[in-house]
């Protein structure tokens, strides 16, 4: 059993990795313990509002690299510890058995060399899969500059792998993480994407990264504007076939003259995630979301901002608008859009129906007509005023017309 002191240090070293998802894998339990849960599963939530799905831990925090932003960088005066593959495997099994976790998210500092470290990570997941017969979710962090053969072997055991691109531009990477290069991060991503495609094409037996690849970048430690970040994200989805791009708003755990002293706002991170959703689920392009050299507005969500720039397209009639257009209405999400499509096959929808269907109308009413009726504000300026933050009370007043509580509605749909 690993001791509490090392568990603490190795967890604290891993916790700034934001990826928590355990979705995308349908791995079967082939004798032994565990299986995949395609929808993903949250097991607990910490006071910072984040979910615990996987046991997120480092093998070692003893690093030969000196990335400026990292609490475990070579120069840092911290206690150095590591865990053995056995200890990690045992911890995973006993936590999983008690249903504390959905699987393992294993990462490591680069201890001696990239190959040596990657080899230890692979040995651990292999131990879990073969000796412990563990079929639960494994997310493995790739170590840049490790050999192709090791990467391939890792992918044959893991459900998901990730190489963090760390910063949104090559220039920032050079400045803040001089020992990692753009190539050292992108080449293994390309290798995995290529090999997964081959694996699929040849219909080989077994699994090869069923949950694909993800990446993460720190926002606010370097000067790239959101427009550039959203474009980078789009190209990662299109060219690398990534499943998710995560953003981590910068928290100053390290003081360095090259780094800002203040944390980046969480609202900025939130807006980037909203933009990311628009790319993945709502059919938007990066170019529609933000100009390259600008940040996303903080007082409006990016869909509202887009709609206000495109008022000539609105209002749309909910009884006729195609799905793609419904999805572009501020306040209407995937589930509401689907419900509208279903319900309008049976009856002509008025605002009273929409309210009854729990479609959130606070923002949507400015952009739709229902059965020809329009309940939005008169002009763009008024709409903008009502949509921007700080006008909540007035909106609640107007909505009571439909006899539904606005907060209850947004709680139900989970729309922010």
């Amino acid at each position, binding site marked *: *059993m*690993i001791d*509490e002191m090392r*568990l*603490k240090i190795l*967890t*604290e070293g*891993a*916790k*700034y990795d934001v990826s928590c998802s355990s979705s995308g894998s349908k791995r079967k*339990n082939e*004798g*032994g*313990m*565990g*299986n995949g*849960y395609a*929808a993903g*599963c*949250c*097991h*607990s*939530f*910490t*006071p*910072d*509002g*984040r*979910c*615990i*799905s996987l*046991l*997120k831990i480092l093998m070692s925090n003893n690093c030969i690299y000196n990335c400026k932003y990292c609490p475990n960088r070579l120069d840092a005066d911290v206690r150095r510890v590591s865990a053995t593959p056995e200890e990690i495997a045992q*911890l995973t099994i*006993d*936590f999983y*058995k*008690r*249903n*504390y976790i*959905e699987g393992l998210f294993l990462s490591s500092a680069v201890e001696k060399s990239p190959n040596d470290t990657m080899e230890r990570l692979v040995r651990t997941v292999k131990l879990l899969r073969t000796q412990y017969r563990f*079929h*639960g979710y494994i997310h493995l962090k790739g170590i840049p500059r490790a050999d192709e053969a090791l990467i391939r072997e890792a992918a044959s055991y893991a459900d998901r792998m990730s190489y963090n691109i760390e910063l949104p531009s090559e220039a920032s990477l050079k400045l803040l993480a001089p020992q990692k290069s753009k190539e050292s991060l992108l080449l293994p991503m390309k290798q995995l994407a290529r090999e997964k495609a081959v694996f699929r094409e040849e219909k080989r037996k077994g699994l090869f990264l069923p949950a694909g690849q993800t990446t993460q970048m720190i926002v606010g430690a370097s000067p790239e504007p959101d427009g550039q970040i959203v474009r980078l994200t789009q190209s990662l989805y299109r060219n690398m076939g990534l499943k998710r791009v995560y953003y981590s708003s910068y*928290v100053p755990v390290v003081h360095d003259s090259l780094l800002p002293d203040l*944390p980046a706002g*969480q609202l900025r991170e939130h807006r980037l995630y909203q933009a990311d959703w628009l790319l993945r689920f709502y059919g938007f392009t990066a170019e529609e979301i933000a100009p390259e050299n600008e940040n996303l507005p903080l007082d409006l969500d990016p869909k509202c901002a887009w709609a206000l720039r495109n008022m000539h397209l609105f209002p749309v009639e909910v009884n006729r608008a195609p799905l793609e257009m419904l999805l572009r209405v501020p306040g209407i999400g995937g589930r509401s859009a689907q*419900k509208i499509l*279903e*319900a309008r*096959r*049976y*009856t002509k*929808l008025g605002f009273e*129906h929409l309210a*009854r*269907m*729990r479609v959130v109308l606070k923002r949507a009413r400015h952009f739709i007509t229902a059965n020809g009726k329009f309940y939005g504000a008169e002009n763009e300026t008024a709409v903008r005023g009502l949509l921007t933050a700080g006008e909540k009370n007035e909106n609640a007043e107007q909505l009571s017309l439909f006899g539904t509580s606005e907060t209850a509605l947004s*709680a*139900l749909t989970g729309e922010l």
Partner: protein
Amino acid sequence: MIYFTDGTAESFLTAFWLAFKDGESYITSTQKQLSLGQKTVFVAADGEKAERARKRLLSFDKNCMDDLSLLLRSGQENREQIANRYLHLLAEKKEPVSKMFAEEAVTEATECIRRVTFEIHRLHGFVRFMETASGALYSPLSPDNDVVDLLVPHFRARLTEYPFVLHDVKRKKAAVYDGKNTFLAPLEQANIILSADEKGWQELWQRYYKSVNIPERERLKQMRGYMPVRYWKFMPEFDSF
């Protein structure tokens, strides 16, 4: 007319059959709903009437009995009435109504079902097993809805080699997997002897939970939204809070 049922599906379907011609009917299994001046009737399950109702409803929508089963598991006191209104609409329209979201009865039923299935999903994550001295796993829980037996397939698939007990302490019953078969049994109180290592693993989990948090980014409201406080009492990570 108020129809009282004993909470079972058979009794509900009997009441539904009787109430259908009634127009303004109310079906409930909760005595609290008794109101003065309303005629009331207690409905015992009648196999024949229930079967006729079931057949009729299934001829309109082959999935409606699955909906009913989930509705009757709800912890909401008006669950029978929600089911009554939903199935009444089905019987009127004589075609599947589950997507007619503009109908209040459908929205109500959909939301009620969603609360039940969402809690099942949540509990897939929030259940906490303790290892007993025999190696079997034990988890106490008190879900809002009557769902312990519906949790079994999920855990059985991943913990095939471990017998386990999911104990609904509120409803005093347990869903049991004995390593081979699964069954539901009444269970008042369980006397558990923990394995020698159990406490040690719980302490490691508590340590992990504390270490993975980022205190600079506290967002308690969000945390409670995702994991309501009523689920905390069976989770070892909150023992020391």
